[in-house]
């Protein structure tokens, strides 16, 4: 596992840094990439992969550092400069106009700026010729993009990127949206592109793909490149360890599994597809007992959003059912789940957890059961509700100018405390949380974690869906891993980071990767 030697480089990066507030997204990165290679950029979410690629594509201006192509410095922070230097990027969310035809979508990249005419037939012919030249198979030029399968749309995006640029092709998690046959097709295509001397930068957090298609791999962690290796010379478990990092202390399971406690919530065989029609949850069953904190770890985008949405009744699964307290529910809606004592700390607090334009007091009331409690003849009992809200503010140390301060004026940590205070103020059988401490400072993180532990000690069952391994280790009584919409069995102690990393990458010990 020796670092790969750097050959004559096509693209080189020197001491590239970018901060977002207190977060060092890129921390003085150096890297060399050569033409004719497929280079994987591997890392967890938040490791800085996307930031780096956005800087290369000119979509973000770095704070310092430089990029060179063929030893020519590129003007940074300009998408136009990046394109004319030969860098093209395919985003995870396609930038195609769905209602237009293939030719119309390609027109911008294929016709010279000076030409104001649009000749669909000519553009179509040009597109086909170019596609043949680079060895890509595309849909007929007159087809409407909306009607094309995802793989075909992606090929169109790749063609667009190659037509406009041509030296460097950046792909942001291209396989996340594809079916397995489409993935094989994509890889074959990337090999074609490589054969023409171009550089392919391939962002992924899937170890198997690195081994399958990449020549070299750079691993990113916390805004740094922690190593560059030849893909053939490094094993998947080594990659996993590099990706998640070695934990100093072996994580401990605080209490034995709550085998004897009564089951608080049981979700059986949940399956659903996301808006693309790709399977997001695949036969997921979750059982959580009184007083237990069940950590569900996993790399973001493996079904976390969907699992939370289904457990909250925000999305209807294709199949499966949920029981709370041994009773199956009449309907899967937040209203019904609230009624039987399920609380939520949603992944996006601004969107789902709070009403930013309302006051602190009004946000503390944002809960069906609370509203019911303070309702008399249809009117809100304001004095009683305000006394109650003031008490909560004190108990959970919410720092705000007053009860009437707009929630928008609070810091992120205090906003999250409002949610936690509100949810824990009600008798809770189950609390479903998703990344409850994301983006919080240390004090707020601790306050939230302490509140969760206290709730569990009081008998509340907690489902902790989190992409933050530290958080999962710190809080959970048992840990399961979500990968590609499938939930692993509980990981038996002692749990170490490497095994968890492998599970998060879809590799189970002694088994074939479950996404094969």
């Amino acid at each position, binding site marked *: 596992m020796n670092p790969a030697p750097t050959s004559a480089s096509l693209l080189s990066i020197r001491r590239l840094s970018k901060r977002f507030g207190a977060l060092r997204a890129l921390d003085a990165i150096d890297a060399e990439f050569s033409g004719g290679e497929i280079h994987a950029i591997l890392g967890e979410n938040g490791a800085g992969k996307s930031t780096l690629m956005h800087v290369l594509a000119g979509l973000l201006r770095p704070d310092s550092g430089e990029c060179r192509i063929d030893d020519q410095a590129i003007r940074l922070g300009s998408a136009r400069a990046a394109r004319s230097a030969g860098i093209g990027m395919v985003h995870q969310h396609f930038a195609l106009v769905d209602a237009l035809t293939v030719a119309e979508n390609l027109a911008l990249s294929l016709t010279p700026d000076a030409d104001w005419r649009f000749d669909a037939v000519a553009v179509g012919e040009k597109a086909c010729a170019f596609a043949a030249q680079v060895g890509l198979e595309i849909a007929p030029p007159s087809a409407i993009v909306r009607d094309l399968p995802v793989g075909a749309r992606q090929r169109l995006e790749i063609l667009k990127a190659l037509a406009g640029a041509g030296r460097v092709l950046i792909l942001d998690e291209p396989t996340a949206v594809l079916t397995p046959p489409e993935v094989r097709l994509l890889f074959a295509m990337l090999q074609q592109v490589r054969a023409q001397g171009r550089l392919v930068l391939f962002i992924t957090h899937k170890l198997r793909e690195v081994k399958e298609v990449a020549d070299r791999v750079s691993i990113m962690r916390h805004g740094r490149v922690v190593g560059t290796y030849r893909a053939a010379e490094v094993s998947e478990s080594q990659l996993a360890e590099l990706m998640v990092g070695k934990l100093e202390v072996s994580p401990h399971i605080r209490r034995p599994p709550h085998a004897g406690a009564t089951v608080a919530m049981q979700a059986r065989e949940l399956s659903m597809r996301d808006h693309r029609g790709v399977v997001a949850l695949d036969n997921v069953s979750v059982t959580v007992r009184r007083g237990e904190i069940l950590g569900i770890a996993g790399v973001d985008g493996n079904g976390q959003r969907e699992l939370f949405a289904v457990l909250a009744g925000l999305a209807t699964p294709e199949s499966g059912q949920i029981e709370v307290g041994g009773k199956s529910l009449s309907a899967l809606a937040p209203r019904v789940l609230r009624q039987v004592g399920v609380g*939520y700390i*949603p992944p996006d607090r601004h969107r789902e957890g*709070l009403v930013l334009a309302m006051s602190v007091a*009004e946000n503390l009331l*944002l809960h*069906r059961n609370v*509203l019911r409690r*303070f*309702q008399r003849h*249809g009117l809100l009992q304001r004095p009683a509700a305000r006394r109650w809200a003031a008490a909560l503010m004190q108990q959970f140390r919410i720092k705000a100018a007053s009860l009437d301060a707009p929630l928008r004026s609070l810091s992120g940590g205090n906003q999250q405390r409002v949610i936690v205070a509100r949810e824990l103020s009600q008798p809770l059988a189950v609390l479903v949380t998703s990344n409850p401490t994301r983006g919080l400072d240390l004090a707020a993180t601790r306050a939230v974690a302490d509140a969760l532990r206290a709730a569990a000690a009081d008998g509340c069952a907690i489902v902790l869906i989190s992409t933050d391994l530290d958080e999962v280790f710190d809080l959970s009584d048992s840990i399961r891993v979500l990968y590609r919409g499938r939930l692993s069995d509980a990981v038996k102690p002692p749990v170490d980071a490497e095994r968890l990393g492998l599970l998060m990458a879809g590799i189970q010990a002694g088994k074939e990767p479950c996404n094969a």
Partner: protein
Amino acid sequence: MQRLINRVLPSLLALIGALVVSGLAIALSGSSPLLAFEALLDGAFGSLDGLSEVAVKSCPLLLTGLAVAVSFQAGIWNIGAEGQLLMGALAIAVIGSRATWLPQPIGLPLALGASATFGALWAGIAAQLKLRRQVNEVISTIMLNFIALGLLSYLVQGPLMEAGGRYPQSDALSPEFLMPRLSPYRIHLGLLLALFLAAAMQVFLYRSVAGYEIRATGLSPEAARLAGIDVRRRLLLALLLSGALAGLAGGIEVSAITRRLYERLSPGWGFTAIAVGLLGRLSPVGVVAAAFLFGAMDAGSNAMQRVAGVSSVLVSIIQATVIFFLVAFERRTWFSKISAEPD
């Protein structure tokens, strides 16, 4: 106090901006802005008759403004107050010229109730389209305006045309259905009803649980839903209330002022109502103030034309400019939310 200033300031600035722009327009057309504004004020507030007319013009704006406020607060862009108003007018015209056997203390409230119901049902069509078929309510309510206008036009030229058959208008309402006026002026009891409803809406939106849920739904539907609020029912309630208020505006207008149905019954109150609602920052108290302001402009505009020689259309320019300035002063405007809406 500070909060009050923050809430009122954008509306005041918009108003001042609109007055400056329209003043410039007057000056450009060769008249004196000061003289025009003075005549406008004098026309509205210079006499008891003027004051009565301010009340008369304000009444439909107040009710339709409330209609706009309650639906916009729920995040529903009801552009159809005009159509709902016309349906309310239609309801009372049909009942009021036929059910003459009812005594006034029963007949009038009943007929006004019918107006509110018709308005609510007309808005209910848009609500059902939105909730069941995800049809954007902006489109459907605008279309329903045209349908209501077309229906009205057909009825007053056909089935509902007056017995004499000379003009495209319905028979006059029988006296049992006329709103009591304070003779010799045109000011009528409907204004009190409208003010009472404004107070009721203020309590409903800011003191009741359903009102809270409507506001939460409008500001953040996802958060409201996760809180266990029945978002669909709240949207339906807000739109039905909105339609009922607009329908009532039509009913009161026919019963108190026009006393019969004809095509050009409304000078576009349902549209001006959007400016009234926005100027009033979608709060019932604010809507009352905005409605009286716009009502005063309407009432004074004739005097302005007579005395200062400035066309009464200028008032429309002021009212329209108010919206432009409001949109400009609001960082996150209600209008930008329309286009940001996913469905």
